[in-house]
């Protein structure tokens, strides 16, 4: 019985998404703009070889995570809409426990976010970002996991907020900083320590990092290797070349990594955030909407 309720609530979220093409398209505008402008822009300023990666491909997982984040978070606004437009009453008087409604809602948000993610990946394909099949499957799995985490956060916020305006204001307030402090736009290895703290408490950071792990082989430029010094050179020549070699070496070593944490850390932290957000959502939804 409970699962059937979760299913139909999930179905409703999907159905509404399908009937509302406007929302679908509008949600792509910002991420696409970032990807194209920043991607081509930065790539044209900094040579790929020097950075050690193709910035466009580096940026892609970050922007993908952002799309998924925004879509899943927006799922929370349906809680407020239901309250404003009265449908909530239909759910309140139904012989079901709010827990199952929350489960359905979160899975709904996650599914819609994943679909948006997949469409975004298709767009990426045409921009030359072409992960292989295995990578693609892993990315999709990650977007779904991120969707559940953020879906929980969105439902929690939707249950806590009184009006659509408040919710939108909150979204605008947190989305930008979360995005910029997630490592979506730049590697976080070499940023100042005080700034790192913001990055570390940001749930999005770990999703972006995980996606970079998955796509690392696509992002990194493997063609650049240390120039080999021919062994048969006279010692004087070796001596003369040394400073140049040292400089190159140090340049290579300070090249930022595309990932920051280990994959295990990313997964564990995401799981932790997910548990917290889902429980918060379940609790707040039951308190504010249940009787």
């Amino acid at each position, binding site marked *: *019985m409970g699962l*059937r*309720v979760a*299913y*139909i*609530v999930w*179905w*409703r979220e999907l*159905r*509404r998404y399908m*009937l*509302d093409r406007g929302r679908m398209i509008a949600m792509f505008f910002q991420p696409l703009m970032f990807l194209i402008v920043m991607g081509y822009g930065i790539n044209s300023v900094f040579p790929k070889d020097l950075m050690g990666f193709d910035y466009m491909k580096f940026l892609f997982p970050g922007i993908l995570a952002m799309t998924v984040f925004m879509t899943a978070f927006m799922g929370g606004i349906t809680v407020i809409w*239901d309250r404003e*437009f*009265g*449908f*909530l*009453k*239909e*759910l*309140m*008087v*139904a*012989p*079901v426990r709010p827990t199952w409604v929350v489960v359905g809602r979160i899975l709904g948000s996650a599914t819609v976010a994943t679909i948006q993610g997949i469409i975004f990946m298709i767009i990426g394909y045409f921009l030359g970002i072409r992960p292989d099949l295995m990578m693609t499957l892993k990315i999709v799995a990650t977007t779904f996991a991120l969707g559940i985490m953020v879906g929980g956060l969105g439902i929690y916020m939707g249950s806590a907020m009184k009006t659509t305006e408040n919710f939108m204001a909150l979204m605008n307030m947190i989305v930008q900083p979360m995005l910029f402090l997630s490592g979506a736009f730049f590697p976080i290895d070499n940023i100042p320590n005080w700034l790192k703290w913001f990055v570390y408490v940001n749930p999005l950071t770990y999703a972006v990092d995980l996606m970079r792990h998955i796509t690392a082989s696509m992002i990194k430029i493997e063609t650049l290797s240390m120039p080999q010094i021919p062994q048969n050179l006279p010692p004087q020549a070796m001596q003369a070349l040394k400073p140049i070699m040292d400089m190159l070496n140090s340049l290579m070593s300070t090249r930022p990594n595309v990932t920051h944490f280990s994959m295990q850390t990313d997964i564990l932290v995401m799981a932790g955030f997910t548990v917290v957000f889902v429980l918060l959502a379940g609790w707040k939804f039951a308190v504010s909407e249940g*009787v």
Partner: protein
Amino acid sequence: MENAIHVENLVKKYGNFEAVKGISFDVRKGELFAFLGPNGAGKSTTINILVTVLKPTSGIVYVAGHDVVREKLQVRQRIGVVFQDPSLDSRLTVEDNLKIHGYVYGIYGRELQKRMDEVLDIVELKGVKKRLVKHLSGGMRRRLEIARGLMHTPQVLFLDEPTTGLDPQNRAKIWDYVENIRTTGTTVFFSTHYMDEAEYADRVAIMDHGKILALDTPDALKKGIGGNMIVIGVKKDKTDSVLEKLKQMGFTPHKANDGKIWIPVSDTASTIPQLFSALGDVITEVDIRIPTLNDVFLTLTGRELRDDESSPEKFVPMRFRR
């Protein structure tokens, strides 16, 4: 036989404000029961408690044999509800709304299709199954809500002001459907502030300021205020003195909104000559009225029930008239 609804000393407070002040009543199985009262009487508050979406402050409430506080889920399974305010998902289609309701109440598959067609038939909406709810008229939405409330064949159907804001045609239709629904043995509990609509009910509870002032069949209520009403018009400046005089004569007159004086009487024929000899030339007109529920309300509260919304009376189908 157990009653469909049992309410004992129900109190609901919003902060310090007592919206329902200790009411008690029973609704029998299969009955068409009405709450009649002006806006703010406490009708919706009571209904929301009966349907488990609002907690009572104190009192005992049983619906369909279960306690609305301790056995919410059991009560919810057995009731259908049409709230005063719309509660459809207007971005989905008619069919979608019914499907969601079906699943939530454990109806799916072939049974779902069958029930969907049945309830859409009842409210004559079969033709718009695929239409988005936001593209339906207000009356159609209301009818859809009734259909939805019937999907899981509830024992008790609650309708909170089901016709408010609708045009006369749609109002009449809704009472047609209600009559139809009753033939299946469903108990129907509705609220209204239109006296004409309360006339359809088997029994009416007249409510005002959180209290039930009277509860009986419409006929008994009208008989209770004693025979007919004599309505007299008097010269404007004389109204107060006439009221005074009538009281001295042992009548209980009321001044209506339009300035006319209403006098409940048991024997019309002998009273009229008596009035003329006592008041004589002050009287400008005389009218005899068979009492309505509005008159009952007037007698009970000294106020008129009717507000400035037009009465749906003219459009009521004849077979409902008593």
